[in-house]
């Protein structure tokens, strides 16, 4: 049964004299390469020019803070529960008096670790989170030589307090609303 029209019938017919000269074929080949010479180049000068990611790209996680710089995460554990790869672990602690500026609610995650070797970047943690605390960003998780280095703690996950250095996740929120 013929599935497509793309199949070609192979023929072993003798080459004609002109074909045997090879020069027409060579000239044809030269013309093809010359056309490529003037064609637009597909290379991107990587570090200077970077490819734009799609809005739904899922990379390095971020633990968000609210406008006042307090951590959103309350260590409810829903993200860890939702995680199909079981990459997330956390330890919950009670907020002590005087720490109101650091944590938004009475409970917070004193340890929050994502094993980036286990993580499949599915984004289910983000969907599970009731506090809008965890998001996946367009940042890349870098390669490394030791497995230990891939267990990312709060030092790598929580965004900086400085309002200028916050991680922009508006694209993610928009992507969520569309879906």
């Amino acid at each position: 049964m013929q599935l497509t029209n793309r199949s070609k019938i192979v023929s072993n017919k003798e080459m004609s004299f002109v074909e045997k000269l090879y020069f027409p074929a060579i000239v044809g080949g030269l013309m093809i390469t010359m056309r490529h010479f003037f064609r637009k180049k597909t290379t991107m000068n990587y570090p200077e020019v970077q490819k734009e990611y799609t809005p739904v790209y899922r990379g390095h996680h971020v633990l968000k803070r609210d406008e006042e710089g307090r951590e959103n995460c309350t260590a409810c554990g829903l993200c860890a529960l939702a995680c199909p790869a079981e990459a997330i672990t956390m330890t919950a602690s009670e907020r002590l008096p005087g720490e109101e500026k650091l944590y938004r609610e009475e409970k917070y995650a004193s340890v929050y670790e994502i094993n980036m070797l286990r993580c499949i970047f599915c984004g289910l943690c983000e969907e599970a989170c009731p506090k809008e605390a965890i998001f996946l960003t367009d940042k890349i998780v870098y390669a490394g030589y030791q497995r230990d280095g891939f267990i990312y703690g709060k030092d790598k996950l929580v965004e900086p307090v400085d309002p200028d250095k916050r991680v922009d996740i508006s694209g993610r929120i928009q992507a969520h609303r569309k879906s």
Partner: protein
Amino acid sequence: METADLLFKAIFVVAIFAVSLVIAMYSTYAERKVAAFLQDRIGPNRAGPFGLLQPLADGVKMFMKEEIIPAQADKNLFILGPALAMLTACMTGVVIPWGDSLIINGREFLLQVTDVNIGILYVFGVVSIGVYGIMIGGWASNNKFSLLGALRASAQMISYELAMGLSIVALVMMSGTLSVREIVESQPGAHWNVLVQPLGFLIFIICAFAETNRTPFDLPECETELVGGYHTEYSSMKLGFYLFSEYINMFISSAIIVSLYFGGYNFPFINSLGLSHNVVALLGVAIFFAKIFFFIFFFMWIRWTIPRFRYDQLMRVGWNVLLPLAMLNIVLTAVYLLWKHDLWTLSLN
């Protein structure tokens, strides 16, 4: 020879040497750029503006690399190989007329190191010695792949030298001289030899590709079969010398193709511009180099267009096609010359 002449010659020799080295250096850069452009890429652009310092970086890399001489290799021959390749590559440039003459203080200086009256034979002789560089290197490495590469190189060069020599014979018959300068001078304006000897030119350029070991005839170093061919065991600047000599050869071959078939430093309307002799001569040099650069580009263009020949195909093309064609070309030229001569004598009577 007087001191002024000697001084001029000395400066000129050094200049030619430097120019061919610089051009060979930038041919490596050009090769990579051309390759990239023909493949829709950008090519080296990190070292300096447009990557122009890339050849320097490559040179430094070559010098800094560890130099390895295999334990079982013949040490002296191993060193002699690349040295010979480089030496012969640099030697050919002396008979090429780079331009007409300069008149300084009423004295004429030829823009050529020496006008040997058997210039073409000299070129062929030196080029044939070039095979030894490859052969000795391949043999001394004590490595199967190197030896195979060297064998192929010598077989290929010997086969193609014949056809090349015969294609030149027809040219020499027409111009009646073996001096490269006189051949160039016999093609004033646009009366280039390629117009009267198209078949000879075709044979010559194919053989030139084979002689310089360029694709589609780069069997001696074909990576897919022979690792690196004759320079498999070479490292550091000795490898650099082999690669470098290939580029110098390419430059010299282009120069020879241009002088023999494309009028050398001649260009149309050369005398109707009304310029002084020296300006015309310098313009001629510029034109000559422009033609050379076109052929260097052509070498690269072919390299990134045509796949490599199989070894038996290479031999068949050399012996069964090019050699008979070159002979046919000689016969045709002879018949034409006789016919012309007869007409000329008839008109005399």
